[in-house]
């Protein structure tokens, strides 16, 4: 019952947060300076009638409240409006981008998590050894560089050796055979993914290390040692799983940071993801696109947080009690 309660609580929180985000998303954008219509009407010889027609078309003539209700209603149907720039449904435009971002951020985060766990565990295990110092020092250093800088430096170092932009070779008339395509995308992914991994892994290492250190101080680790278990077994069977709890929280909290990093990285590597779409739309004042991008980015982070709650719940039985 308590477990159900926990899930319900997190579920309600998630829904409320999404609702707040959605609302903020709407109102935030209605106070932007620079009317959408000015942008749209920058066509030669635009008449007031035309301007009005455009206002009507984008629903900008209604009261804010009505606009809000319409916005909510449309949202429920998955309708994020029509892009000012592309004059196409935002949902349609962003779905591809979302997939691309998920690919990049997913592989990047997973890589960072694996690397972070490995290096964090080893650093804690070999606390104060040269290995620990090297490992922790590196993690701290990498963690301290801004993501965009890491991306730029990788570009300087590897442009020419590895694809520097985009996510595949676009100049092909027919889509290449499956594996060739995978290879192509993979080679384009190398630099952005490494940047993302570097952005995130340092933080994970440090968290895993310190939560491992805390865990290694727990009495049950002493018990495990007393049982005559090998160190490896003590670490992986007893300490790691418990040390993972803060890691899960951290990963969840860090998702926002990773997504932020992903925006920067997408911009640098022209990765056709949702971050870049949002960034481009922002400078083009394409409200519906910005709104859509912001919403998708934010809601995915919120949902992933919920997912992290579930993982936490699976990992730590005490939550359910």
């Amino acid at each position, binding site marked *: *019952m*308590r477990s*159900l*309660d926990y899930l*319900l*609580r997190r579920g*309600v929180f998630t829904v409320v947060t999404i609702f707040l985000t959605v609302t903020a998303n709407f109102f935030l954008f209605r106070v932007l300076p620079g009317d959408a219509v000015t942008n749209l009407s920058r066509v030669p010889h635009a008449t007031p009638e035309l301007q009005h027609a455009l206002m009507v078309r984008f629903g900008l003539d209604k009261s804010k409240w009505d606009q809000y209700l319409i916005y909510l209603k449309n949202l429920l149907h998955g309708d994020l409006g029509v892009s000012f720039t592309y004059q196409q449904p935002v949902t349609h435009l962003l779905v591809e981008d979302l997939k691309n971002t998920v690919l990049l951020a997913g592989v990047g985060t997973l890589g960072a998590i694996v690397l972070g766990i490995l290096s964090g565990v080893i650093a804690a295990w070999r606390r104060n050894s040269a290995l620990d110092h090297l490992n922790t020092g590196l993690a701290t250093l990498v963690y301290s560089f801004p993501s965009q800088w890491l991306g730029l430096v990788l570009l300087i170092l590897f442009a020419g050796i590895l694809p520097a932009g985009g996510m595949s070779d676009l100049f092909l008339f027919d889509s290449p055979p499956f594996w060739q395509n995978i290879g192509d995308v993979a080679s384009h992914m190398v630099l952005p993914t490494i940047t993302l991994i570097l952005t995130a892994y340092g933080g994970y290492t440090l968290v895993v290390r310190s939560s491992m250190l805390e865990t290694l101080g727990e009495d049950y680790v002493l018990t495990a040692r007393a049982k005559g278990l090998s160190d490896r077994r003590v670490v992986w069977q007893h300490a790691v799983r418990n040390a993972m709890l803060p890691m899960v929280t951290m990963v969840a909290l860090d998702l926002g940071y990773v997504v932020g990093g992903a925006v920067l990285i997408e911009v640098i590597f022209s990765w056709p993801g949702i971050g870049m779409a949002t960034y481009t739309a922002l400078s083009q004042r394409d409200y519906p696109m910005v709104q859509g991008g912001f919403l998708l980015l934010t809601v995915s982070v919120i949902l992933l947080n919920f997912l992290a709650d579930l993982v936490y719940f699976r990992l730590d039985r005490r939550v359910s009690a």
Partner: protein
Amino acid sequence: MTEALLEVDDLSIHYPIRRGVGGALTRRPRSVVHAVDGISFRLGRGEMVAVVGESGCGKSTTAAAICGLIAPTGGTVRLEGNAITGLSERRLRTVRRRVQMIYQDPYESLDPLCRVRDILAEPMLIHGIGGSKAERSALAAEALERSGLSPAEAFLDRYPHELSGGQRQRVAIAAALVLDPDVLLADEPVSMLDVSVRAGVLSLLDTLRKDQDTAILMITHDLSTAAHFADRIVVMYLGRIVEQGPAREVVHHPRHPYTKALLSAVPRRDREQQAKPQLLAGETPNPVDIPPGCRFRSRCPVGTDDCERTDPPLVTAGDHETACLFV
């Protein structure tokens, strides 16, 4: 029996527990922890009453309610006949001055960032005692001396970490004494201290009540200590008093099966004197849903079906009260 200074009358404290989203949705009734459920006892001037009972039976909660930290769900606490429950924060101030609490862990109950001087001055500042700094220092020094820390000057400027456990507990007692309280509530005052220094602190409390007529309510796990120092013993079980009476009476002639079992389980220095411990089966029921009838029924070695129906009241025999159908 001495005149009652503090009277606790039918005191109940229930902590509501959150029913959570799921509970609210399914309209589950709000449930409460019956931490204390209708207890009454009296404490006279210069008297030391020990409250014993297993962990979670409501001892600390009782003390917190007496000194006004928790508002009781029901019942009253009277100091010299005047109810001190349900008072406004302002009226409570005078009461706070007269009822002082001493906590279990002397490592925790003194602010590590304050010198002994400041720790002792704080109650005076709050209650506007001692006009000047010098005056307060004098009062503080005097309280320290009374608590057995002399010369006081050697201690006034120390930080708590520069004191041993026993000394810390004495400082805590001194901080209570600067207000000249009528009642001291001591919640397991020695359980964190080493065996070798416990006796000193306990003797100090003993002296206080004898010399200054301070009434002391001492909460303890340790029946031997209670037997040794207290005038009266109150035995609690699951939020209720099951037995109370003069210490010697209770220890030598326990009436309630729970008290008997507890006493039999106390290790004795002398192996020969040790009775076979009368082990109770099962576990204490959850204070959230307490079964009807006698609360001790589920673990009672002598209970009958009657106990499931009747919730036994405290029956007085002389000065000794017991809540059991079989007494």
